[in-house]
Structure formats: structure tokens, C-alpha cells
């Protein structure tokens, strides 16, 4: 232990002598904290979409000869996107081509006429025009999603309006009321009142005529009852399927807490893996390893010192990052005991993995590259949720990421930050097993260092 203490002091002295490394160790978590903080506190920017309405002013959708009130489609669309107003198609095309707008949505002049033709014997196909610049696959996918969503919203708004008007007419037929026609108001008797009148006059009719009148009365009653049922059906036609969300598989933490956990784990992983792997490779690069292990310190002691160095520096940097996140999202500092436990155990497992990498490569540059090449894809794959890829690929990813400490570290830190997360016991046990496995690999790989 005496040797470990002096080696730890030496490594901290070397770290202090490398201003670039020291600055990176402090600047990196602050940068991550600020980026994540802005990302989760500001929300996504609205996409810019050109909106060109060529429908003549005052044109309205009509049902049964009656014009419906305006559905305010433009207002609904422009709440979801940042609408760019243009005056003609050329201007719309230029803005999409230049990338100033993601897409252009054009309502052609005959749109309303075609919608109105739907209730005639010669229905047309109402169409809106969309201009997109699919300069890359990601952008094309984004535009498709946005436009599909916007059109679904617009269709829903129109359908609701038509349904509402249809319901109003049905109510008029069933219950009666006043109806405006060409500036005049006419009174509609309605089925209910008609049936009542017929029932009232029936006793006054000669007996032979009563059965026929009763048939008419029954028809009016049946029509009234069935049309009462039709009204909710028309209402549901606009949105026939409603969502009833059932949460299975436990409560998940809020998205911003998960984002902070990802940022913290990423910071911890890079700092610890790079520092441990680099400082171990440095012993080889400085030719000090054989001299140290000639009785001054055991290889296990040297490994333990590197893991301790990485864990302590990782803990300090991660806590610094979490303190920075406090400016954006309030954190539960009362859970700091669990934070420390999760960070320390995660740091130890990540440090052991870094030691295995450091023992496998002999140069600091090579080991730094190796650490990036391993840590980055593992971190990326650890964030792939189930259902995002095929089940076979997801299973492969699950087993692969279970071999590295990043995913259990993320689970442990998420659980430590928020009580709604998964339990912390499982991830800590997983990390402990990985710590032992990687320590063994590192110990074995260090034998190569002894050869001269």
C-alpha cells in the first residue's frame, strides 16, 4: 500500500504537469453538461416549412349546401412548425432548394372545390402539394415524418368539423329546430315532435286508418332512436381509434434525468478508461514498468493504483458535471450517497476495463485510440432501445453491451439519480462481476510488460 500511495502521488503530479490533459479533464465535463443542459431545457426547435395557400379567399368547405366555418388549417399547422410565408410557387421552391426551409406545403386553388365534390356523385381527389429537398436520407426521413404528421392533423381538424356539422344536422332531424336557408330561418319539426303529433292524432282517426298511421309513427320512433346512435358514430369517425396507454415494465425516470445520467456516464467512461489505460501504457512508454515491478510494487498493486487514480479523478469530474447540470435541471442532492456509490463502483469497473486496454497496448497514443474505438461504439449501442431494431439484432446488442461496464454503469447512475429508475442492486452486481473479470484480464495481459 505504501508504494501505491507514492505512485498515486506521482501520477497526479504528471497529470498536473500536462496542462492540456488537465484542461480537457475539466473542460470536457463542463462542455457536456452545458450541451446536455441546453438540449433538455430548451426543447427542439420548430422546423421551418414554407406555407402557400392558393385557395381563393372566402372559399369554404360546404356540407349539404351549407358552408362550414373555417377550420383554421393554417393556424393549426403553424403552431407545430415555423411557417415561412411566400407569395408564389417559385419563391417556395427557391426556399426549399436553398435549405432555408425543410419543405413547402402548398394548398392548391382547387383544394376546397375537390373537398366539396366528395359529397356529390362525381367526387374528386383532394390533394395538397409538398416540395422537399431530399439532399440526404436523414433529412428525407425527417421531412416525411413531419409532413405526414401535419397532414394527419389537418385531416383530423377537417373531419372533426364535418362530423360536428353532420351531428348538428342529425340533431335537427331528430329533435327539430330552426335552420337558416338563403337568409331566411325555417323551422324543422323533427322526428320526435312528428311522432308525438302522430301519436296524438291517432285516436281521432277512423279505426281502419290507424294501423297505417301507427306504422308511420313506429318508423319515426325507430328512425329517431337509430339516428341517436348514429351521432356518436359520426363523432368517432374523425378519430376512430383512441390511445389507451398501459405502462409495462416499471416506471421510468423523467427524460431529463435520463439525459443527465447518459451525460454523466459518458463523461465518467471516457475520463476513467482513457486515464487508466493511458497511465498504464505510460509506465511502459517510460520503461518504468520493469523497474517498478522488480520488487518496488507488485503488478496487482500497480493495477490497483491505476484503477484508484481513474476512479478518484472520474468521481471528481462526474460530480463537477452534475453540479453544472444543477443550473438546468434540479437534482435530488439528498440521494448523493447513492450517486457516490454508483459512480465509485462504475468507475472501478470502467477502470478495470481501461487497465485491460492499457495492458494490451504498449503506447499511450495507441491506447488512447483503442480506448476511443471501444468506448464510443459501446456507449452508442448501449443507448439503442428495444424495438428500435429487429429482435435478433437487439439481442446481439444486449449480449455485446453486457460485456462492457458502460450499460450497467448507466443503469446504476440512472437509479441513483431518480427513485423511479430501475433498481440499483442488479447493475452494481453486474459491475462488480465485470470489475473482477477485467482485473483478471489486465493482470494476465500485464505479463507481456515484463518481457524485455
Amino acid at each position, binding site marked *: 500500500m*505504501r*508504494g501505491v500511495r*507514492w*505512485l498515486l*502521488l*506521482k501520477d497526479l*503530479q*504528471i497529470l498536473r*504537469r*500536462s496542462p492540456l490533459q488537465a484542461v480537457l479533464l475539466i473542460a470536457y465535463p463542463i462542455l457536456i453538461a452545458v450541451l446536455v443542459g441546453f438540449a433538455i431545457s430548451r426543447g427542439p426547435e420548430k422546423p421551418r416549412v414554407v406555407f402557400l395557400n392558393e385557395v381563393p379567399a372566402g372559399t369554404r368547405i360546404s356540407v349539404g349546401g351549407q358552408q362550414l366555418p373555417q377550420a383554421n388549417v393554417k393556424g393549426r399547422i403553424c403552431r407545430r412548425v415555423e411557417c415561412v410565408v411566400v407569395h408564389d410557387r417559385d419563391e417556395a421552391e427557391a426556399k426549399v432548394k436553398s435549405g432555408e426551409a425543410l419543405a413547402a406545403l402548398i394548398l392548391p386553388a382547387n383544394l376546397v372545390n375537390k373537398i366539396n365534390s366528395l359529397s356529390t356523385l362525381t367526387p374528386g381527389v383532394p390533394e395538397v402539394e409538398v416540395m422537399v429537398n431530399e439532399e440526404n436520407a436523414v433529412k428525407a426521413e425527417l421531412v416525411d415524418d413531419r409532413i405526414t404528421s401535419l397532414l394527419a392533423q389537418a385531416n383530423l381538424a377537417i373531419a372533426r368539423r364535418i362530423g360536428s356539422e353532420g351531428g348538428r344536422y342529425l340533431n335537427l332531424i331528430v329533435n327539430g329546430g330552426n335552420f337558416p336557408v338563403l337568409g331566411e330561418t325555417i323551422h324543422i319539426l323533427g322526428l320526435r315532435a312528428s311522432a308525438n303529433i302522430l301519436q296524438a292524432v291517432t285516436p281521432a282517426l277512423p279505426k281502419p286508418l290507424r294501423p297505417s298511421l301507427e306504422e308511420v309513427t313506429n318508423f319515426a320512433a325507430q328512425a329517431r332512436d337509430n339516428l341517436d346512435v348514429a351521432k356518436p358514430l359520426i363523432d368517432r369517425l374523425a378519430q376512430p381509434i383512441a390511445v389507451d396507454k398501459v405502462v409495462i415494465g416499471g416506471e421510468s425516470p423523467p427524460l431529463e434525468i435520463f439525459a443527465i445520467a447518459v451525460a454523466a456516464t459518458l463523461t465518467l467512461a471516457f475520463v476513467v478508461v482513457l486515464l487508466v489505460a493511458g497511465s498504464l501504457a505510460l509506465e511502459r512508454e*517510460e*520503461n*518504468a514498468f*520493469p*523497474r*517498478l515491478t*522488480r*520488487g*518496488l*510494487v507488485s503488478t496487482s498493486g500497480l493495477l490497483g493504483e491505476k484503477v484508484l487514480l481513474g476512479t478518484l479523478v472520474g468521481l471528481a469530474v462526474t460530480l463537477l458535471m452534475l453540479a453544472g447540470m444543477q443550473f438546468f435541471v434540479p437534482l435530488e442532492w439528498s440521494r448523493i450517497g447513492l450517486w457516490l456509490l454508483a459512480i465509485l463502483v462504475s468507475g472501478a469497473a470502467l477502470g478495470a476495463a481501461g487497465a485491460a486496454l492499457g495492458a494490451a497496448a504498449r503506447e499511450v497514443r495507441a491506447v488512447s485510440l483503442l480506448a476511443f474505438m471501444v468506448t464510443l461504439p459501446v456507449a452508442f449501442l448501449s443507448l439503442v432501445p428495444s424495438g428500435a431494431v429487429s429482435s435478433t439484432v437487439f439481442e446481439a446488442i444486449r449480449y455485446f453491451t453486457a460485456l462492457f461496464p458502460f450499460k450497467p454503469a448507466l443503469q446504476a447512475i440512472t437509479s441513483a439519480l431518480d427513485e423511479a429508475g430501475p433498481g440499483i442492486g442488479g447493475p452494481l452486481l453486474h459491475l462488480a462481476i465485470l470489475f473482477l473479470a477485467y482485473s483478471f484480464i489486465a493482470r494476465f495481459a500485464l505479463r507481456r510488460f*515484463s*518481457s*524485455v
Partner: protein
Amino acid sequence: MRASGIVKRYGEREALRGVSFEAEAGELMAVIGPNGAGKTTLLSILAGIATPDEGEVAAPDGEVGWVPQQAALYRRLTVEENLLLFARLEGHEDPRASVEEMQELTGLGERRGEIVARLSGGNQQRINIAIGLLSRPAALLLDEPSVGLDPRQRSRLWEFVSALAGRGTTVIFSTHDIQEAERYGGRLLVLADGEALFDGPPDGLREAVRREAPEAADRDFETAFVAYLHHRGH
């Protein structure tokens, strides 16, 4: 320090083939030979870093100091920090006093606060040796200590090493500089392809050359040595 029948194999290749010798206290012994002769392997085995496949090493009472060919120290630390670190790792009761002693011995007292990376190769080698001496060894092993040094630095290095031997430390060093071995080595151990061809004083090697390669006996020592190796089939 005694080595008996040392054999070391790397796969099918035999790096050392039954090398034996015995070095007395205060003796300055040079291990010479061409590249790949087995010099570094022999010193590594004597230092305990590598283990022989056959044979035994008997070290003198006390530590065996080892100075590797490339300086084994931390270039981002100062001279003093390097010495202090290794003195502490050696478990010295008063590490600062040991550091003072080594700085005086190496003549680097005035540069104690300088970062090692900024020192010349010769000065780095002096610290390298000083670290090897921190264990107060009865025997000191130096693997090609003068590589990369200019003549002035080399001269100061050998002055320093000779003084150590004068104080009773057994010094065994490897080199492929024949003139240097002749000048500073009181005794020469000639290795070629892992085999010990000669063990004795420089004059004895001259005598062996005269006997086995008479055509080169009157040439300079290096030419005579090459002729001797050639005559012995190497």
C-alpha cells in the same frame, strides 16, 4: 555475482547457451558482442526481470541495482521528484537525505528542479543510474549505458561508474563499443549468438586474437575483435 550454465530460449531460438561466469566485488566487467548476441537477455536474467530456462544465478548479499538501456524514469517529473519517488518506493527511512546524496553523486544538484524531459540524454542516463543506485546495491547492472551520449558525456559517465567500482560495487555493463569495453572494462565477457566465447581481461582477448587470428593481431582492437569472431564462426 555468479551465473552457472544460463540457458534462455525464445521459442526455438536459443538466446543464451550455457553462459557461466563469476564477478568479484569491485570488479568492472564488460559484456560485449554483436547485436543479438544475448547481452541484454543475460543482464535481464541477472537483474531478475527474466527467468532462465536452465542454470542458476547467485546474487551477492544486498540488492542488485539495474539500469536498463533506455532511461526508466518519468520525463514529466523533475530530477528531484524522480529520485524522491524511487527513494520512497525503496522504503528509505529518510528519502530526502538519499535524494541529496544521489544528486551530489551525479552532480545534478543544481538541476534538481528541472523537468527530466528537458535534460540531455547524458544527464538523463545519470539520473537513470542514480535511481539504480538508490537501493544501495552490492552489484550494479548497466545495459548499454553510453548509447546516445556524446564523447564528453560518455567520459563523465565512465568516471562516475569507475568511482562506484572503486568503492567496492560490482559493476557489470553491456556494450557493443569494443574500444569502450577495452578502456573501462577490467574484464571482458564476449558473447556471440548466445555463446560465451571469451572471459578474461582485455590483454587476454588480445592474446586470444593473436593466437586464433594472427593476421589481425596488429590492427586496432575493434578490427582484431571482428576477425576473432569471424575466426570463431560468428
